[in-house]
């Protein structure tokens, strides 16, 4: 048992760090909050694209992608090391993650040679941003219940319907969309996967205002939108296979790293906040809560070490990754809630000048509910753990062999 890098890993880490030192600004303790507040705005897209191109030129983009697509062909552990090092520097938010982490691998697995040639390199360089058009108002966790249709018309397909929760649709060049092409077959058998130009006529994008006031995701409406059959990914009716590839990669790219303030910040808050003349940290109830947060956070961190060990020995990331998001998101939500309680009535104040950490706890508290839903709700993750890791029997699925057109979905009064 040893936490240290191997000689090879040490060399790789040093190389990564040296490049970052020369090309980016190092974060100082307590900077996490400031970085969070930099999110949003069109200037972010410009700086993010510049940073991505710079990384790509130096060979630090899409680390695990094969070299033939411009990647580095790096191991999973090298990718983690790179991420660890990059996270110590002030860098723009990664608005390319959906493309690079989820859609790129799907194109590599199911796309045509022409598609790989056309799309992967600009995706890697951050020249073109991608979005994922999966969820619909009546098909969230039950993704296979989607109703957006694609109907064949000569060499084209004509798309009608609506998607929702589409992150970054407003600034994406391309989207990958799941459509229903045959409602007479059972639900997973009638789905086809396409690449779609987000600037096509007939696409309307409406931002959705979230509970935290932001609007990173959107509703997307399709009215007679035409796509060439050349943009089909995989065979007609085989779209679910591609969707699974995307979702498997999504689990890897969305994790417990919710960002924002951490345990050390909470400890500092408890030291510095006055409770009737004494530090909050002196209170036994506060101490019990803090200890629970600490051991849970450490448990997650060390579970990560175990995963790294497995990866470094060539294991393929499995459903165990679900633990990270399931535990990490709830833990962060609990910590943020507790931080606000420690502050007393001022806990509800969100003015950055007054609230500690520039109101990062409050921002975390309002943002976390989204993380507990995105990329699989807590409940779906529990199902994944139960069925895929513990091999418990799958849920009873009443719609399994029923033609899609006969399956009730969504609200009954819809």
């Amino acid at each position: 048992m040893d936490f240290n890098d191997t000689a090879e890993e040490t060399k790789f880490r040093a190389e990564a760090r040296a490049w970052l030192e020369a090309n980016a600004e190092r974060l100082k303790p307590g900077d996490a909050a400031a970085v969070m507040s930099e999110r949003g705005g069109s200037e972010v897209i410009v700086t993010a694209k510049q940073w991505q191109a710079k990384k790509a030129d130096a060979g630090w983009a899409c680390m695990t992608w094969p070299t033939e697509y411009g990647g580095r062909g790096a191991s999973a552990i090298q990718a983690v090391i790179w991420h660890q090092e990059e996270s110590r520097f002030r860098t723009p938010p990664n608005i390319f993650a959906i493309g690079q982490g989820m859609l790129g691998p799907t194109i590599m697995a199911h796309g045509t040679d022409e598609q790989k040639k056309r799309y992967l390199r600009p995706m890697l360089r951050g020249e073109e941003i991608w979005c994922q058009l999966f969820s619909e108002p009546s098909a969230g966790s039950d993704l296979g219940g989607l109703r957006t249709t694609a109907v064949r018309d000569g060499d084209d397909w004509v798309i009608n319907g609506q998607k929702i929760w589409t992150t970054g649709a407003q600034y994406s060049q391309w989207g990958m969309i799941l459509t229903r092409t045959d409602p007479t077959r059972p639900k997973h058998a009638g789905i086809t996967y396409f690449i779609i130009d987000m600037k096509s006529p007939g696409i309307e994008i409406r931002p959705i205002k979230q509970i935290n006031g932001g609007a990173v995701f959107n509703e997307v409406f399709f009215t007679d939108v035409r796509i060439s059959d050349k943009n089909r990914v995989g065979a007609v009716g085989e779209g679910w296979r591609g969707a699974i590839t995307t979702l498997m990669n999504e689990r890897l790219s969305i994790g417990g790293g919710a960002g924002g303030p951490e345990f050390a910040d909470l400890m500092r808050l408890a030291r510095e906040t006055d409770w009737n003349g004494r530090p909050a940290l002196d209170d036994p109830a506060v101490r019990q809560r803090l200890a629970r947060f600490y051991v849970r956070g450490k448990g997650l961190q060390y579970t990560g070490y175990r995963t790294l060990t497995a990866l470094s020995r060539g294991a393929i990331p499995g459903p165990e990754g679900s633990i990270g998001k399931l535990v990490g998101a709830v833990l962060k939500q609990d910590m943020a809630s507790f931080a606000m309680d420690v502050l007393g009535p001022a806990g509800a104040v969100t003015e950055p000048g007054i609230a500690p950490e520039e109101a990062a706890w409050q921002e975390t508290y309002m943002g976390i509910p989204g993380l507990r839903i995105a990329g699989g709700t807590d409940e779906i993750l529990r199902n994944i753990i139960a069925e895929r890791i513990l091999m418990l029997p799958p849920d009873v699925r009443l719609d399994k062999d029923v033609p899609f057109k006969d399956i009730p979905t969504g609200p009954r009064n819809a």
Partner: protein
Amino acid sequence: MNFDFSDDQKMLRTTAREFLEEHAPLSVCRAVLESDTPCSDTLWRGAAQLGWLGTAIPEEYGGAGLGHLELAVIAEEIGRALAPIPFSSSVYLATEAIVLDGTDAQKKQYLPRLSSGEAIGTFAHAERPGRQGPSSVSATLSAGRLSGTKMPVLDGDVAHFAVVTARTEHGLSLVLADLTGPGVKRRPLHSLDPSRSMAVLEFDNAPATVLGPEGRGWERAQALLDRAAVLMAFEQLGGAQRAFEITREYTMGRYAFGRPVASFQALKHRMADLYVEIELARSNAYYGAWALSNASPDLPTAACGCRITATDAFDLASREIVQMHGGVGFTWEYDCHLFYRRAKLLGTILGSADQWRERLIELLAATAPDTSHPAAQPYA
């Protein structure tokens, strides 16, 4: 990055598991529970013959000269089997105390016999109900004679000697007392888990010698408890894992409403949660084992992490095994109560999880902020 046991250590685990599956099925635990015998002598001899008792004892004192990672591996298997033997008292506490603080003469006197299983040791600290700390000790050592009462002492009725906390003219100290000689009265106590025995020990001018630096008894006791907490965490983890596996198997085979009860989300989600708690505890335990075997300055905080999460995980697993079995889970005939009993016994014997949480924050508050291990967030 290598956060896993080595192939040799895994081999040791396999051997240990095979031995215990053959010689310590749960019926052995039950037999001790239902009888007046305090522990299984056969199993104890078996453990000694396999060299388990001397795993972390240096070879020069008759041990196997392996280390704490190997001991952790065995502890987990002992925990899986709910083995009714005084392993934790003798190995994690008494042996560790002598390895840690014994003079060469004391090591020569005790360690070979501990390693062979000829001698069983224990640790006697508590004197009365309540949270135990340095000020709860009133036993005294004066002119080489120990007086006072210790209660409860795990395995106090089978141990041959005890490491005892007592006051001397220099303050609180650790002392070594023979339990088979004059001046010692002992009485077995009825307890929640009769598969592990407990006793009250009365010392009346019993001969005893100082162990380690006199007057620094609490500091040394705490160092000892930290080590025991890590090893005990593996025992708790083993118990939790076994309870989890039995629960899983039962719910897969038990049908209701025409399907296995394991297919109902109400149970599946709880199984997923239980699995998560056990895995988090396992990760903390691994870190503790690493800290222990590398004499890391992080050992005290790591020990807290081990103790807290292992106690909570075994506690949850032991409640769920009863609950998820339904009515039969509450019967004497099914094995669920063996886990329910053992989890609570192990969860109290080194101090409650709450007590360790308090200690953890004390330690963290005493250190400068933000000195943690470089962050690794592979999920991010």
